[in-house]
């Protein structure tokens, strides 16, 4: 029994000599913070496996996930980008709001489809997916509308951008 006591005492004294209480607290703290941050690290969690049709990840294609409720010409094709109006146009003051699922992270995003206004139609890259849209007799959820109509003198339609405005849920 005394051997056991001595062994434990020696080990405890060695530990006490080699470490400080603050050092132990600091180590534990770092472990805790590290553990908390680990899930937030920007790591590709798909592990190389495409979780969806590759087309749905290509912003130049109509079936790009963010265009699920699109009805218009892609501004990225008309001198702008997917979310920015081309020079010489202004973004519409009213818009169509849709919900699209991003196949990569499985989340539903709220997308605002704003028209870009003030120039004549771009005439290229027309996409019409209009998920869950309803005919004109349900005007509140009907998207066959020129969203430039609230832009006064610059009401002519040029193209459409899609902007993430939130996460549904």
């Amino acid at each position, binding site marked *: 029994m005394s051997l056991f006591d001595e062994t434990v005492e020696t080990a405890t004294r060695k530990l006490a000599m080699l470490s400080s209480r603050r050092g132990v607290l600091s180590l534990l703290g770092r472990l805790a913070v590290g553990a908390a941050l680990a899930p937030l690290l920007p790591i590709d969690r798909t592990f190389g496996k495409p979780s969806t049709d590759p087309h749905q990840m290509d912003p130049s294609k109509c079936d790009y996930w963010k265009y699920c409720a699109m009805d218009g010409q892609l501004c990225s094709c008309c001198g702008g980008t997917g979310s920015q109006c081309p020079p010489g146009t202004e973004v519409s003051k009213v818009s169509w709001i849709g*919900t699209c699922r991003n196949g990569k992270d499985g989340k539903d995003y*709220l997308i605002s489809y704003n028209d870009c206004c003030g120039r004549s139609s771009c005439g290229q890259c027309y996409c019409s997916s209009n*998920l869950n849209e309803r005919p004109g007799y349900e*005007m509140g*959820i009907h*998207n066959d*509308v020129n969203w430039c109509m609230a832009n006064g003198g610059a009401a002519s339609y040029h193209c459409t951008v899609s902007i993430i405005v*939130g996460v*549904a*849920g």
Partner: protein
Amino acid sequence: MRRLWAVAACTGLITAARADLPMPTVYTLNCSGCHGARGQGVREVGIPDLNDAGLFVRTELGRQYLIQVPGLAQSRLDDATAARLLNWILQRFSADRLTADFVPYTAAEVARFRSDKASDAQARRDAILAEMRGRGLLPQSYEATSPAPP
């Protein structure tokens, strides 16, 4: 066409239709397309500023009107969700317009008044504002930014 009530009133598209969606999501989907993320509307084309909505609950007709506006009365939202959304909008955008004795809307109240649709919302709105103006219920801060219609 100067007024966009019929065409653009609160357009939304709910693909993730769930009863438990948080109010900011319900607002974004159903109202923000026209009223904007901050509720500001587009006054010059007749889309009201929701930051003034709290003024309307100061009279009985005004309180009913907020239920009867096209964006709410004609939406696909059930009465309970519509009442919660209305209360959320008032608190989120127009808390400074609410009086201390404001009583939140209930599903039963929405159900009772919803069927009387304000098909000419602008005329109904103008009449309510005129009545409030006559009774001295409109604050100077509102009159300064929203003059009476000609």
